[in-house]
């Protein structure tokens, strides 16, 4: 079992993607298929960007065991007001600044869900928890 934890600062666009890049390298080191590594990277990057744009900051934790590659994104608020709306493609509350960086089109959460094997999203004003999982063995998604 391998666990790695990363701290993430809100609005830090300079570092945005560096955690996903590291997780992608770890996925490669586990001998995953190219297609699966890409799914891990895309889902992780979308979630990392979401945290940078929308949250007050938080932590990302990678857990790897024999069967699962799991990533947990946990922030300290302000939470997602309407989870159902947030899952609709095109719905967004992103700022103009975020959109000028090429994001905030309302595609993040739907695209994450499309790329993962398990998806769990919980939110309150105190924070949001997103847990995504990838089966290490066998075909998935």
């Amino acid at each position, binding site marked *: 079992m391998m666990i790695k934890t990363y701290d993430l600062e809100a609005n830090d666009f300079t570092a945005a993607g560096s955690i996903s890049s590291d997780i992608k390298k770890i996925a490669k080191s586990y001998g995953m298929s190219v297609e699966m590594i890409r799914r891990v990277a895309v889902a992780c990057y979308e979630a990392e960007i979401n945290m940078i744009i929308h949250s007050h900051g938080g932590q990302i934790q990678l857990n790897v065991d024999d069967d699962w590659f799991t990533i947990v994104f946990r922030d300290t608020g302000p939470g997602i007001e309407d989870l159902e709306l947030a899952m609709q493609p095109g719905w967004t509350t992103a700022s103009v600044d975020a959109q000028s960086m*090429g994001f905030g089109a309302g595609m993040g959460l739907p695209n994450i869900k499309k790329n993962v094997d398990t998806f769990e999203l919980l939110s309150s004003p105190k924070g949001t928890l997103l847990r995504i999982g990838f089966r290490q063995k066998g075909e998935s998604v």
Partner: protein
Amino acid sequence: MKLQSMIGLLQATPVTVNDPYIAFKEYLYVSCTDLMSDALAMICTNPAQTILLTGLANGQALRTAEMMDINVIILCRNKTLSEDNIDLATSMEMNVFTTSLPMFEAVGVLYKEGLKTATRNDDQNI
């Protein structure tokens, strides 16, 4: 089409080249967008044969290409990268070029030469 030919058609110049053989590699598909969310959600072609054509000259364009396993970016409208982002591109072994053409014209040139779209709007899969 070899990247070398594409570069010639677009009269593009290198911003940073990290693969000495990149000009001789064949590319068939182009993803043309300033919206990285779209690139992440909709590129469905072999990344080794796909180019990202964009006016977004920042670290997020580089990161998006990195996550998608794309190794060539062409920037439109004479955009270029900051020194920090050139260093980032180098660390990723990314190859970045720039053309003075606006995106519409750059896409038109490549489309006319037979390059295909790398993206699809497959809402049913989202």
